């Protein structure tokens, strides 16, 4: 039976997206998208290219404003707020096409992630007040911990733009973790990674969840998605077509038709990267 009223917000849900709409001119990128992410879960959002996955992330992080619907974090509405506020409230992300601060060092990138967790102003920084120097040391130490967490500690002095793609993706994760988020949105973290790097990524995602950080994963690599996620929501042309456990999604007829190809190519492994 179809629910006629908007779904009630579950108390255990950290992120809730309700009837989310986004149009770009005449193009409706998202239409009435509703789903929730339970606290502590790893939830994957999958769908064919152009389904609206990155748009969803841009809406959740406040880079774009929704045309309709509500996004809430812990029951508090975050849609309509500025990206900085949303970041402060505990939403962090990585970017599909890697947006690092390329001319800064690896460590400095992560230190920018600590921005909302430190206070120094122009005046206290310019005058190098003692408390500011202590804060700077703390920021540096915490940033190093995040680099160690993703396994990049030995590259800390490198220019971020000089790292190979795989390490740039890890650095983005470290930078996002440095904001101490409640929820981390990963936009195609495995894109461009080889099999071994992807395996390490899966292990990293589990360790992130182990830190009690909820993870939302947009990903085309089906092995990774099926491997790490607790829950999957499938969108196609801006609408939700299925939601459930990985094994349910694998067999869901609408998913197989819309996403994996009518022949069910996925079963043969040919649909690994759609």
């Amino acid at each position: 039976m179809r629910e006629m009223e908007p779904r009630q917000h579950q108390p255990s849900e950290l992120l809730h997206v309700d009837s989310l709409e986004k149009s770009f001119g005449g193009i409706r990128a998202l239409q009435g998208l509703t789903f929730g992410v339970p606290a502590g879960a790893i939830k994957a959002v999958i769908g064919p290219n152009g389904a609206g996955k990155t748009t969803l992330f841009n809406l959740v992080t406040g880079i774009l404003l929704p045309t309709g619907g509500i996004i809430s974090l812990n029951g508090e509405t975050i849609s309509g707020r500025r990206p900085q506020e949303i970041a402060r409230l505990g939403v962090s992300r990585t970017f599909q096409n890697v947006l690092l601060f390329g001319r800064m060092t690896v460590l400095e990138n992560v230190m920018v992630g600590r921005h909302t967790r430190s206070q120094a102003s122009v005046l206290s920084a310019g005058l190098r007040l003692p408390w500011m120097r202590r804060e700077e040391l703390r920021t540096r130490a915490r940033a190093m911990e995040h680099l160690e967490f993703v396994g990049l500690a030995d590259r800390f002095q490198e220019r971020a733009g000089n790292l190979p793609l795989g390490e740039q993706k890890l650095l983005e994760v470290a930078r996002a973790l440095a904001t101490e988020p409640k929820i981390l949105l990963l936009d195609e973290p495995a894109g461009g990674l080889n099999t071994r790097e992807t395996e390490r990524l899966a292990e990293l995602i589990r360790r992130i969840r182990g830190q009690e950080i909820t993870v939302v994963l947009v990903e085309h690599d089906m092995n990774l998605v099926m491997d790490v996620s607790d829950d999957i929501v499938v969108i196609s042309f801006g609408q939700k077509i299925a939601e459930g456990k990985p094994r349910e999604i694998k067999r869901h007829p609408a998913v197989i038709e819309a996403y994996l190809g009518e022949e069910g190519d996925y079963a043969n492994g040919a649909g690994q990267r759609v």
Partner: protein
Amino acid sequence: MSRGNLITLSAVVLLLILFPVLVANVEAISHYLDVMVFVGIFSLITMGLSLLMGYAGQISLGHAAFFGLGAYTSGILCVKVAVSPWLAMVGGTLVTAVVAYGVGVPSLKLKGHYLAMATLGFGVIVNIVFNEEVELTGGPSGLSNIPGLKLFGLPLRGELLFYILVWSMVLLVLIFCLNVIHSRVGRALRSIHDSEVAADAMGVETARYKVMIFVLSAVLASLAGSLYAHYVGFLSPSSFNLLFSIRLVMMVVVGGMHSLWGALLGTWLLTFLGNEWLHVFKDFDILVYGAILLFVVMALPEGLVSVVPRLSHMWRRGRESEGGTGGT
């Protein structure tokens, strides 16, 4: 402060101390001390511009106007209201800060060429005001009889005392700015330059930081303007026109946008070229400027200051291959 900065700073301080001694003993360059005072005054502006352009990635073609606002506020307050010069200087920075904030909030929403055009327009408007408000500014014939500065009752007469005052200020501002760059604030500014979207997502208040650094650079320009007013004693609108704004940007670009040292180097070079070394070319000096700018942009996009690390890199490589370890 990093070791490299500390070494460079010590070297600069040493040169600054030796310079007056050298000038006093060599007749041919005795007037260079006067030029160095101007280099110091302009350096205050270009350091702020370097923070704005090289670090935060925002361009301004209106900084001559802030320089002028400081100069004229100081001049007018001293000449027409008989306020003490130091108080007038503070007044100048306050006026400039308010104006810069008013201009910065709407125009920093623009990017690239549009921001350049907006600040350029602002600069032109301010220059028209300097020209037309004859009652206040003296108009095209200028504002004269601006009193000199006094420090602890001692009048700062002569070039040497002013040289010491100006360059002490430059060094203080330089240390302040170096500290800012290597702090949370500096990282935030540089992150805006590299990717504003990512900076937003990390919680950096990008709009606020852009306005703040714009105001800070304007205040530094205003401070320079006040010093200029008291040093020269005479103001005319043509010192604060668009051409000067462009020259300020050029100083920063030629020296190296992404480095405060570059700003100092560029200011030094272009001020000496403009005030001294290009006089032989008469009106054709603009061609030489063009050639210099073209050369730097094409051959050294990171500015003259980038030659230093490149040379030391080559030197190190050369030593390595001599030692037989060169592999590549």
